[in-house]
């Protein structure tokens, strides 16, 4: 019987034993990593639907592989299946179709897409009826069992639970652009409680459609630099003008250190701590003094039992909106103080775009790959850094540097703030 290893608060240590990633940069962590450290962009002109009349015409889309029309939940599900398959295979945990732990899935609250709505509308059963009356008559007369199983908010998680044989009721969650990080938090908390030895944490988002582009445009949240898609996401740059929507998924297999060691698993890194603090200021903006974000970061450090100067690299939320990047810098400079001077900070979103519900999980995965490689992915498109953001954003070119501990930030609409800290396997 080996000795049980606990963290600084007497809790089980949480490790990562499997990682899967799919983004606009490629499928699988090898392709993604190669493109990330080469400074490539996955952003392109949207071709899934006509973009005439749209202020934003670019995104980090992943091609739809299904038969027939694009359907958001099917796309998100497909991406999640890919990343989860990769992560579980690497972890070599459980047996095929039987994952020994619960499932936490960050998903977008996807509604019926316009393609599907118009398809139903075009049905003949409703005669001359119009509007929702027409939709309802056609739905009642037809067979829409597939849509019934796809457009519930539980759908993606339930289908994943069927595929991967996770235990218990799967949890579908959303905390806007912090959702992916929340899925990791929930897994960490379940293992720390002793509810389980392992958890499957997934973030997925394949929801780039006309209405989502228009909705974010209405909030003036998106970049409109359509002429240069690959140059449009420019976190921390003086000329940044919004984020670029993107699709992707990542999966982390979390385990207790004891359980992973006992089965001889290859440990990819440690989740050292998590922190959170809800903001009360505004639906889409942070408190001007950054106090909620500052608290979030401080709480993650306290949870990890680490000092600011132990953080070697910060994987920024770095959306490329004027507001986020300014506030993230303000909070980091407040918490890290002089430790910020020597700490590189980069934004994966400069290359991948902003994968919304999946971003926190994807960036957690990349944080762990960064530790493993000792190479920091750059912030591309940083040709003129914002003069008010005085930090090393690893502009344009990767940086080779040993990294033991990474902080990964995620902030979302609705005052959602989550910070995760990862480190290398303990000696």
């Amino acid at each position: 019987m080996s000795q049980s290893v606990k963290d600084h608060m007497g809790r089980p240590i949480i490790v990562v034993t499997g990682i899967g990633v799919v983004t606009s940069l490629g499928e699988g962590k090898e392709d993604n990593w190669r493109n990330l450290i080469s400074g490539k962009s996955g952003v392109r002109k949207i071709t899934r639907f006509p973009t005439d009349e749209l202020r934003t015409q670019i995104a980090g889309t992943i091609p739809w592989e299904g038969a027939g029309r694009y359907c958001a939940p099917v796309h998100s599900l497909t991406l999640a299946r890919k990343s989860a398959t990769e992560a579980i295979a690497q972890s070599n945990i459980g047996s095929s179709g039987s994952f020994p732990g619960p499932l936490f899935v960050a998903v977008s609250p996807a509604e019926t897409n316009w393609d599907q709505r118009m398809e139903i509308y075009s049905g003949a059963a409703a005669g001359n009826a119009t509007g929702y009356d027409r939709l309802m008559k056609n739905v009642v007369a037809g067979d829409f069992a597939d849509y019934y199983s796809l457009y519930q908010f539980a759908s993606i998680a339930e289908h994943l639970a069927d595929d991967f044989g996770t235990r218990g009721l799967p949890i579908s969650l959303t905390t806007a652009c912090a959702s992916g990080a929340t899925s990791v938090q929930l897994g960490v908390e379940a293992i720390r409680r002793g509810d389980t030895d392992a958890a499957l944490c997934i973030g997925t988002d394949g929801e780039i459609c006309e209405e989502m582009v228009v909705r974010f445009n209405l909030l003036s949240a998106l970049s409109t630099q359509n002429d240069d898609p690959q140059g449009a996401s420019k976190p921390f740059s003086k000329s940044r003008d919004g984020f670029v929507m993107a699709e992707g998924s990542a999966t982390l297999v979390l385990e207790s250190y004891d359980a992973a060691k006992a089965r001889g698993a290859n440990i990819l890194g440690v989740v050292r701590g998590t922190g959170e603090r809800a903001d009360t200021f505004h639906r889409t903006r942070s408190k001007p003094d950054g106090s909620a974000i500052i608290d979030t970061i401080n709480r993650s450090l306290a949870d990890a039992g680490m000092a600011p100067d132990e953080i070697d690299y910060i994987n920024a939320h770095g959306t490329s909106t004027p507001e986020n990047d300014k506030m993230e810098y303000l909070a980091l400079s407040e918490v890290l103080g002089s430790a910020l001077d020597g700490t590189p900070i980069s934004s994966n979103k400069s290359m991948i775009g902003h994968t919304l519900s999946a971003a926190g999980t994807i960036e957690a995965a990349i944080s762990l790959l960064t530790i493993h490689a000792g190479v920091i992915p750059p912030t591309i498109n940083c040709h003129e850094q914002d003069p008010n953001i005085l930090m090393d954003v690893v502009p344009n070119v990767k940086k080779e540097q040993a990294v033991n501990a990474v902080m990964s930030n995620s902030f979302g609409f609705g005052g959602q703030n989550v910070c995760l800290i990862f480190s290398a396997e303990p000696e």
Partner: protein
Amino acid sequence: MSAKKSEVWVTGIGLVSSLGEGPDTHWAQLTAGKTPAPSVDTQDQAPYPVHPIVDFEIAAQIPKRSDQRQMGQWQHLGTYAAGLALDDAGIGHNPGLLAATNMIVAAGGGERDIEADNSIMEVVSKSDNPGEQLNTCLNNELRPTLFLAQLSNLMAGNISIVHGVTDSSRTFMGEEMAGVAAVETAVAQIQNGQGDIFLVGGAYIAERVDMAMLMEFGHTLWQGDHESVWTREDRGGGMIMGSAGAFLILESREHAEARGIKPYARINKVVSDRCNRQAGAARKVAERLLEQVSDQIPEGPLPVLSGCCGVQPQLSEEHEFLNALSDSGINPAIRAVTTVLGNTLEAQFPANVILASLAISRGAFFDPFDNSGVEQEYAGHPERILISSWGHWRGESLALIDTPDVPLRGKD
């Protein structure tokens, strides 16, 4: 594993439904000594009956007009009910407690603009260039406020902004089971020292044709006049949706005692699982779940609140499961809450926990909700109440609400 687990107490409730607002109103209507009269609207969503939300004074919990304008009715209702629960527990307007209050909201999505959708469908369906036409219509018809009012996590966001709840904030999705998972997770966190106070709950607005469409994809809705769930059972089944906002304050015993607040009841256990809903599978899941709580249930009469939504064949499976409790010497007094409130989806399980907690604290159980004969009289003083909740599509759960060994709220 870790140290002794904390007891989880219900120390605050906020409930608004088709029956009215607040514990006293619900209690009075459901214990009047006769079959309660549900509030039903058969016109608004015809041919689908719904239990409509009562009028509630939004400004009483959401005083700023600027906040009110940022939300639709769904977010109004949830933010309102959350405020009632916070006030009931003595947390509202107490910055110290609010900063230590964690939140798990069970959320669907906010209202679509039905008029805008109708107009867009009409124009796009007649266009020779539907793709471009759709973009033009969306640009013209959508409003920025509406996007935020539709976003699922913005119910939690509004609760933070309006009421000042600022510890962790999570939003679970997934219809009825989101409500179960929210309570189950909060209970587990409190039991294991991952937080002392949780605001947990959800809201649902039934008067929404976009949601009716989602349910009718599976041909799951009941049409025509209101019938009790048990009357629908041998007539093909079907759901009647209901509006409700239901929020709970869950608190560790130590924390509640330290600040001198009495509980309504204790949450003994919440257990849940899932299956693919092949014939008989859900009942098997429920039987396994029962094994996890049965050591806490003595033989004899047992009050049961069921969330059976009315969709067949799971309605009959749940009914058979509940009848089979007698094999273990348990004599269930079943109340199908969905008969009186409708299926309130994400709010359903939190609402059932609220009703169970009220019955525990007031020392009596509800009158039968219909006269089908399924629901037996129960005249005793309930020590524990079982809640059975299955999703209309997926997920099964059981919860046991019982009596802590201290004086309860509502008895002083």
